């Protein structure tokens, strides 16, 4: 078990190095450099050339790369070209917002998807299953932004149950007041977002149950006189959640890329919105840092799902 985890960690090191190199080189290949954004008509070209030399922009790419990585270890991700603040602090505030929104979304996703998947698999082709299939087709087919805007129109604009945008109300005060306000702002985006992400998980779980139900080992369990509800929970269900566990890393990555759309629609100040804003403003330092961060989170997500999978599935453990 621990060998699997250790091995998996070791594999991540080259992945991280390659990822960071790619991100760095892509940023290097983009037009302009840190001074492009700071130039004003009065700047002396010689002075800029001197600064380039001082800041090492004329060095070999790998010298610059090592310096960049070294700075990163000290928490220095560079300065935003546009906002003129350290990228690290810019990302940190947004990352906290995205983290809580994603966490709430993941929890809601599984809270909705698992009972739905179990019901659909258990009552295959009966009305419960068909109703869930219809729901799935709708959430799968309707693009996220249409779904979100309809949600805002219905629940925020027409019914007035939830705020339309933002992450916290300006008038909120006190620890509990701020916390409550944050949660209140997150609920609608999290629910709508969760409904979209449930589709795949429901389908995986349903298919898993439908396939495992007729497996020979299930028949063996029944032939032992194991009561049907135990057969379902202990034998069928446990084998059916494997694909979901394997898919967990993907779910996390999906949440990050999906956060761009939902955060834009809800004007929610998170990483997704920051990412889109950075693209439109050509804020390359922020963009580079964000891409690296998304990459690292993807690797972490895969790491987590591999570790979880090795806990539940003995077949993939390394001996």
């Amino acid at each position: 078990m621990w060998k699997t985890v250790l091995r998996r960690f070791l594999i991540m090191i080259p992945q991280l190095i390659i990822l960071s190199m790619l991100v760095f080189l892509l940023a290097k290949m983009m037009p302009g450099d840190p001074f492009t954004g700071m130039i004003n008509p009065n700047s002396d070209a010689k002075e800029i050339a001197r600064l380039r030399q001082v800041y090492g922009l004329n060095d070999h790419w790998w010298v610059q790369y090592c310096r960049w990585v070294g700075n990163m270890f000290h928490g220095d991700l560079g300065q935003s070209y546009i906002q003129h603040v350290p990228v690290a602090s810019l990302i940190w505030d947004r990352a906290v917002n995205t983290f809580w929104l994603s966490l709430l979304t993941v929890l809601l996703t599984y809270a909705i998807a698992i009972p739905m998947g179990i019901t659909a698999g258990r009552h295959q082709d009966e009305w419960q299953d068909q109703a869930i299939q219809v729901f799935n087709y709708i959430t799968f087919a309707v693009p996220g932004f249409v779904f979100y805007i309809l949600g805002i129109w219905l629940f925020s604009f027409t019914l007035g149950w939830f705020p339309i945008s933002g992450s916290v109300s300006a008038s909120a005060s006190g620890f509990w007041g701020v916390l409550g306000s944050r949660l209140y702002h997150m609920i609608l985006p999290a629910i709508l977002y969760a409904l979209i992400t449930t589709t795949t998980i429901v389908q995986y779980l349903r298919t898993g149950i439908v396939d495992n139900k007729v497996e020979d080992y299930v028949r063996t369990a029944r032939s032992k006189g194991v009561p049907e509800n135990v057969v379902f929970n202990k034998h069928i269900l446990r084998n059916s959640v494997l694909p979901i566990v394997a898919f967990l890393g993907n779910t996390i990555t999906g949440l990050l890329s999906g956060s761009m759309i939902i955060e834009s629609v809800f004007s929610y100040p998170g990483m997704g919105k920051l990412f889109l804003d950075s693209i439109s403003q050509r804020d390359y330092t922020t963009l580079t840092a964000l891409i690296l961060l998304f990459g690292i989170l993807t690797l972490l997500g895969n790491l987590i799902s591999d570790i979880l999978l090795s806990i539940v599935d003995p077949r993939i453990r390394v001996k």
Partner: protein
Amino acid sequence: MDRQKDVLLDIQHLHTGYRLGGKFYDAADDINLTLKKDEILAIVGESGCGKSTIAASIIGLYDHKNTKVTGDILYNELNLVGLNENLFDKIRGNNIGMIFQDPLSSLNPLMRVGDQVAETLYYHTDMNEEQRHARVIELFNQVGMPKPEETYAMYPHELSGGLRQRVVIAIAIACKPEIIIADEPTTALDVTIQAQILDLLEDIQRQSHSGIILITHDLGVVAETADEVAVMYAGQIVEKADVKTIFEHPLHPYTRSLLNSMPQADDEDAADLHVIQGTVPSLKNMPRTGDRFAARIPWIPASAHEAEPVMHEVEPNHFVRCTCYKEFHFKNEEGVQA
């Protein structure tokens, strides 16, 4: 009366039909069989002849929505047909053990094999965890598992096919059932392992005096292990006798054809192995009247067959369906004569 006492399982007029496109078609059609103590009863036939259907009907493991079972399966005054599921769960694994064909897929890949055996004990005995563990080790020894202690904690994928089948057998015999149903227990195994597993089954039967229903398509297996044999074709039993009679004086054309299509090592003309013409009809297209085997022996005149073939007791304990056996001859024999 003594003979009656030894009867473990008495199957009377069993019909098991599967729903196909809204209608039920009998895959097992009017089956009458008895299993006695200390007896290995072999049910032989081609794939799709209904032999596994009989096993599923006995142990009550079929899709209840799409299967219709009628008739009687009497076990100790208890009719297993239509038995309440909660009651059936107390019998399955406890009084009736089942061994399945494919040991690769009949064990849960996520559970340690020892725990899978112990699960049976958990539901049928009041042993505590330690006692169950000890019993599993004892069972592993009994089924000839090398290193039982180490094997307990292993997962199915870590064991070979032969060892997995031993685990499956250990599950089946864990509660010392009176009846063991073995559905093609050696089909998925290497020939060398096959012999070991069959020996093991015979050992178990000798020790426990249980009755074994052995379902197979392999006449070699039948010759080696069975006491009584029922030959099935297209959902019906066509011939039933003790193993010696079946191999020495087979009567029904189907039994004779089957035996004739077995390769013989000492046969000089091994090249012209007998082939039964045509194929087994599908469940939907199975003839429901007349002799179901008639279509595959077209050179036998229709007059030789009974209109509604029934079982005839031609000698004590030797039953044959239809009267066509009297006029049956192989096609090439006819050629030789002509």
